[in-house]
């Protein structure tokens, strides 16, 4: 109990670090989720265009302008070259279409006259170009069969009126899953930073040569003392994990209380235990409190960048991903990503997650063995 109490007293003295990393998780986790909300909802934006007609008000031109009015924001701008150029330059317009003289006449005789355009070259201009091309191509097809201008326009309008309907067969709420994945991916950074730094710091205090000497000469059984210290560290790790899970439950409660949500939680628990063992190793290796701060930053930031906690893995170069394979965070994030895109939870689809879990457990065992070697090497007495 004495060790346990002392552990929490030392922790309490450094609680600011825990608070800072938790606030970072909350701020960046929530802002990441908001960003994902925006990026997952697509709505086509109408491009701003202007039409300069040098042809007559023919049925074809009227039909074309009507179609453009429906699909674009057709702006009334003075037909002046300088004004139009300025509008393009200042992005008031994305696209300007010039219908040349005798366009209808030439079109109806099958000559395929060209439309002149001015464009900003951005994606809105490309979209406008796509709208224009679709109408002209359709009109070209029907022009070969229909010689009457009004009939041609009516036919083209009829065809372009039909829109393809896309029905999503997936029942997966990818937007919500994206949020959970982002939160838990980012939580890996805060967890590593909090655990490595705090456990390292506390082990450093207890492992000071002079303090250790006092513990060895005391009537407290050394093994019992170390066991109490280990349990205190595990307790702290579990509390940190529970705190981050509770935050996720508050932010995303509907998803978190599903089977998938529980797998996210279980994955984070395995990861927490793995990082606890890593923190033990670092805490036993490093004897300097100042160095520990730097090391915890390098480990937390390094593994988060390399393994895709901040930047999705799909955007990372191959060599970075190869390096990331030697870090447990990679397997944790990989499981999160798999869970986020997995259509159905079955034995087969869970296989990669199970493999990742086994790898994380293997990492934990390696860290425990290495910690023991370090402790025994340091404990050797004259």
């Amino acid at each position, binding site marked *: 109990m*004495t060790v346990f109490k*002392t552990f929490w007293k030392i922790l309490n003295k450094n609680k600011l670090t825990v608070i800072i990393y938790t606030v970072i998780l909350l701020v960046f986790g929530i802002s990441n989720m908001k960003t994902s909300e925006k990026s997952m909802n697509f709505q086509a934006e109408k491009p701003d265009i202007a039409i300069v007609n040098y042809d007559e008000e023919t049925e074809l031109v009227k039909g074309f302008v009507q179609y453009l009015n429906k699909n674009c924001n057709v702006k009334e701008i003075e037909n002046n070259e300088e004004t139009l150029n300025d509008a393009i330059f200042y992005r008031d317009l994305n696209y300007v279409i010039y219908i040349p003289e005798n366009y209808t006449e030439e079109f109806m005789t099958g000559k395929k006259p060209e439309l002149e355009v001015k464009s900003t070259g951005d994606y809105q201009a490309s979209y406008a170009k796509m709208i224009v091309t679709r109408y002209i191509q359709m009109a070209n097809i029907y022009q070969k069969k229909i010689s009457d201008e009004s009939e041609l326009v009516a036919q083209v309008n009829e065809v372009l009126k039909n829109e393809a309907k896309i029905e999503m067969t997936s029942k997966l709420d990818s937007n919500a899953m994206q949020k959970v994945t982002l939160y838990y991916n980012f939580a890996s950074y805060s967890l590593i930073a909090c655990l490595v730094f705090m456990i390292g710091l506390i082990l450093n205090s207890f492992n000071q040569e002079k303090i250790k000497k006092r513990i060895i000469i005391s009537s407290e059984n050394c093994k019992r003392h170390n066991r109490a210290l280990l349990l205190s560290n595990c307790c702290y790790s579990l509390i940190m994990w529970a705190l981050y899970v509770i935050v996720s439950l508050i932010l995303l409660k509907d998803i978190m209380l599903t089977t998938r949500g529980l797998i996210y939680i279980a994955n984070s628990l395995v990861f927490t235990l793995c990082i606890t063992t890593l923190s033990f190793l670092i805490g036993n290796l490093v004897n300097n409190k100042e160095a520990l701060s730097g090391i915890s930053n390098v480990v937390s930031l390094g593994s988060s960048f390399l393994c895709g906690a901040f930047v999705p893995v799909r955007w990372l170069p191959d060599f970075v991903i190869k390096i990331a394979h030697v870090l447990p965070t990679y397997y944790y994030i990989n499981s999160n990503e798999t869970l986020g895109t997995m259509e159905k939870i079955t034995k087969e689809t869970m296989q990669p997650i199970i493999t990742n879990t086994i790898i994380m457990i293997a990492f934990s065992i390696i860290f425990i063995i290495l910690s023991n070697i370090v402790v025994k090497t340091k404990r050797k*007495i004259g």
Partner: protein
Amino acid sequence: MENVIEVRNLVKKYKEIIAVDNLSFSVREGEILGLLGPNGSGKSTTINCILSLLKFQGGNIKIFGKEMTPNSYELKSKIGVVFQDVSIFDELTVYENIDYFCGLYVKNKETRKKYIEDALKLVGLEDFQKFYPKKLSGGLLRRLNIACGIAHKPKLIFLDEPTVAVDPQSRNNILDGIKQLRDMGATVVYTTHYMEEVEILCDRVIILDKGKIIAEGTTDELKQRASIEEKVTVEVNNLDVRELPKIKDLMNVLEVSYEDNLLLVTYKDGKNNLVNMITYLKSKGIDYQKIYSERPTLNDVFLELTGKELRD
């Protein structure tokens, strides 16, 4: 009186170097034993062997009649150690530090609370209970270090140079505390380089050098063993150094030195040395400001036994 510690033929080697060479001694119940010796004489190594912090190659150590091993937890509960380096948690307050180290021995909360209060009182830290170590002066830190080592009321206490770099007020407080511990029945093994502390505190002294005991006894016994019998100091300005060989030739004179206007004459034996010196100075017409005689100190004995050459 029973022997609390019995060390027999202790040998400790670091590869080829013999740090403790067939050392045998005992510490009696209720005494304060001063363990003296120059740097590297084997004091700390001996203590570390007694405490099972170091393995040793030969001999045996018994504490309270039982063999001391790393797993002798019952024996360890009766021992308190105050190391030379301040061994405390920077993150804990004065009270919390004592509570932690006392808690390694005393599990009962109420008893521990009382023991902590007693320890705080003994070292005079009652007003600093809630202070963190960073806010304490060097002297207060040393006192906290002592409180952490003795709070569990051990019967045998090892104090390894507890007054290093401490101001005179704190030193007095620490020495009074050690006397109180002895008065409460504790046996104390005290190592220091300050001879005046040994003279004030220790019932018995062991002087170690090169891992061996070179002298043992009470301070008076040790002083008697010294070849110096008396020291006469004369405060005299501008003494002609040619006078020094002549003074050396006077009766019973062992050594003569003159430094910083102080003429120091040591005598191996005899009576009326001071009167003889005054007579000699008058006969030579040498004016002096002060003249006084002293008995040899433990420091003189120590230097005589261990030599004046510098040690590492």
